[in-house]
């Protein structure tokens, strides 16, 4: 054979394998409204940047007719490439090949690219579209999952790990996404659950559709398993590209800065926030008034929307925002919002992203359901995360900062580096109405006109305590600032915190209230 014919032979082999499960299976995939694994990778990565490895990998399973089956690439594509010129490692399960089922070689390919990502300190993206374990390979598929989970855990906090659910991801398989930093889902395409509707129906008699049980919306809104929700695969890829632009490639790097921009021309800060702490406004308007341009990448937008988390840039540098949302549930802390914020704080801390906290919050949500759902241990997560974080931490108190919530929202006491308060801030054990009822109980009860007396005492309490100056007198607040100065103060605070260096006591690891 001449060299030329060798090359032609290689090309032919490649073409054959790159077809995955073949034309029929690809057609079926398209009918389900899904792109193929290869199309997905090529749409997500920079043009011509993708390089594939282990294309010719084959399974060596025997039994159940496996010896005679050829599964191209063993149902998964792995490789390296770039997104916005930043290197990444990627794998994509190919549903057209045996339903993307995971066997030993399939898992070996995934763990190979995971090991590579960890070694090279670059982000890992996993596209999940798989029927689950390849039953014919028995315990070897379970072993494969275990090896993946172990690596997810090792890589956690070292490199960013992104999971994209573009098809079914059921049973044990769901635990890889659950261990990663960000999970992306797409309407009508993503399905995640431990046990599917048919098993639930036969065993438990509960009738539920796949979409209602573990569809994209459910995970984005109810379970909190998903961080980003999109209507189409292409929108999802754009979200991933946006996310990659904000985060550093590993925990030893800082996010690459962008050219600074002035804040977008939105509403004036003073015009957004009503001075009455009982009247809501959209906290996102405040965030956008502080950031470069109008870009703000909100994370977990639909889950626990009473707290807002997300990435933006200030003077070109990535900043993580944590902000109460008075528009939803008055911005209270509860089980879900604590959980949501705590994980995000730990993400920012692990990846050297400074945290800006915007506070306007009446306390923890009262209720039996909250207490029984464990608001104590969930609420503790946010305290833990802020206390432990050593990245620059800046807090701005806009209005209410009551009780335990005041302490939890990156207070001075948890080692915030800078705490600013607007003149409308109220730092107190509770709101004036509740406090006056307790402090002046006797006077109110004994008065001839209790209602009138109560009103009077609430006013009295408001004047004395519902302001930022009591806390400022103690040094718990560094400065009371005018709302329009907020961006400049945060920028200055971040600038002087650039070299921040604190040391926590030496330990193997803490024991956060998971």
């Amino acid at each position: 054979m001449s060299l030329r014919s060798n090359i032609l032979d290689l090309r032919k082999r490649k073409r054959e394998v790159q077809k995955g499960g073949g034309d029929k299976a690809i057609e079926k995939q398209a009918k389900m409204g899904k792109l193929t694994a290869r199309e997905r990778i090529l749409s997500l990565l920079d043009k011509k940047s993708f390089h594939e490895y282990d294309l010719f990998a084959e399974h060596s399973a025997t039994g159940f007719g496996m010896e005679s089956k050829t599964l191209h690439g063993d149902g998964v594509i792995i490789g390296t490439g770039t997104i916005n010129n930043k290197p990444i490692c990627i794998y994509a399960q190919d549903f057209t090949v045996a339903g993307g089922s995971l066997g030993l070689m399939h898992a070996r390919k995934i763990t190979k690219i995971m090991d590579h990502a960890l070694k090279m300190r670059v982000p890992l993206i996993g596209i999940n579209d798989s029927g689950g374990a390849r039953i014919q390979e028995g315990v070897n598929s379970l072993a494969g999952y275990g090896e993946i989970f172990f690596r997810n855990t090792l890589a956690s906090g070292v490199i960013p790990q992104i999971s994209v659910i573009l098809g079914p991801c059921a049973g044990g398989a769901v635990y890889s996404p659950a261990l990663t930093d960000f999970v992306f889902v797409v309407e009508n395409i993503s399905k995640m659950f431990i046990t599917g509707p048919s098993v639930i129906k036969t065993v438990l008699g509960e009738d539920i559709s796949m979409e209602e049980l573990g569809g994209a919306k459910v995970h984005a809104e109810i379970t909190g398993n998903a961080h980003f929700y999109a209507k189409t695969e292409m929108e999802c890829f754009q979200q991933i590209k946006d996310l990659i632009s904000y985060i550093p490639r590993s925990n030893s790097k800082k996010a690459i800065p962008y050219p600074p921009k002035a804040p977008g021309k939105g509403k004036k800060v003073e015009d957004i926030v009503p001075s009455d702490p009982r009247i809501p406004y959209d906290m996102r308007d405040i965030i956008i008034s502080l950031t470069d341009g109008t870009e703000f990448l909100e994370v977990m937008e639909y889950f626990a929307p009473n707290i807002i988390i997300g990435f933006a840039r200030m003077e070109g540098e990535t900043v993580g925002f944590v902000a109460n949302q008075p528009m939803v549930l008055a911005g209270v802390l509860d089980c879900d919002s604590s959980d949501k914020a705590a994980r995000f704080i730990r993400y920012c801390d692990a990846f050297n992203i400074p945290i800006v906290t915007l506070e306007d919050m009446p306390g923890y949500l009262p209720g039996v359901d909250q207490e029984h759902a464990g608001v104590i241990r969930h609420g503790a997560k946010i305290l833990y995360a802020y206390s432990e974080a050593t990245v620059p931490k800046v807090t701005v108190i806009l209005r209410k900062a009551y009780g335990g919530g005041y302490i939890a929202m990156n207070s001075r006491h948890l080692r915030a580096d800078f705490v600013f308060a607007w003149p409308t801030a109220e730092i107190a054990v509770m709101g004036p109405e509740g406090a006056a009822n307790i402090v002046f109980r006797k006077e109110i009860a004994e008065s001839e006109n209790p209602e009138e007396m109560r009103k009077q005492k609430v006013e009295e309490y408001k004047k004395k305590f519902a302001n930022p100056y009591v806390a400022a007198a103690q040094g718990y607040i560094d400065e009371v600032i005018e709302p329009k100065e907020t961006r400049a103060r945060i920028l200055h605070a971040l600038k002087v915190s650039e070299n921040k260096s604190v040391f926590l006591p030496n330990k193997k690891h803490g024991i956060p209230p998971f």
Partner: protein
Amino acid sequence: MSKEKEYEELIVQGVVYKTTLTRKFKERVKWEAPNENLLYSIIPGKIIDIFVKPQQKVKEGETLLLLEAMKMQNQIRMPFDGTIVKIHVKIEELVPNRHLMIEIKPKK
């Protein structure tokens, strides 16, 4: 402020806030004090056998019925000496979780 009309109220520590409520908040299960005379299913499953009849006197610890779930047969036992008031399930019936199975009353 035409938008204000869409807001609902949430009371936190005596203060009434204007805000919106989430679907999860609205759908939360209201707590009720447990009634020890009502025996509910502890897991969704299938009633395999019923050993008692209404008006029957039963001693504490006696098995009232078998509830099969996840291939396990759970014996539902009498929590105290008493009488069966009403049986709300049938043999072979599939019951969801927290489904009322039997009403009982304690011995006077």
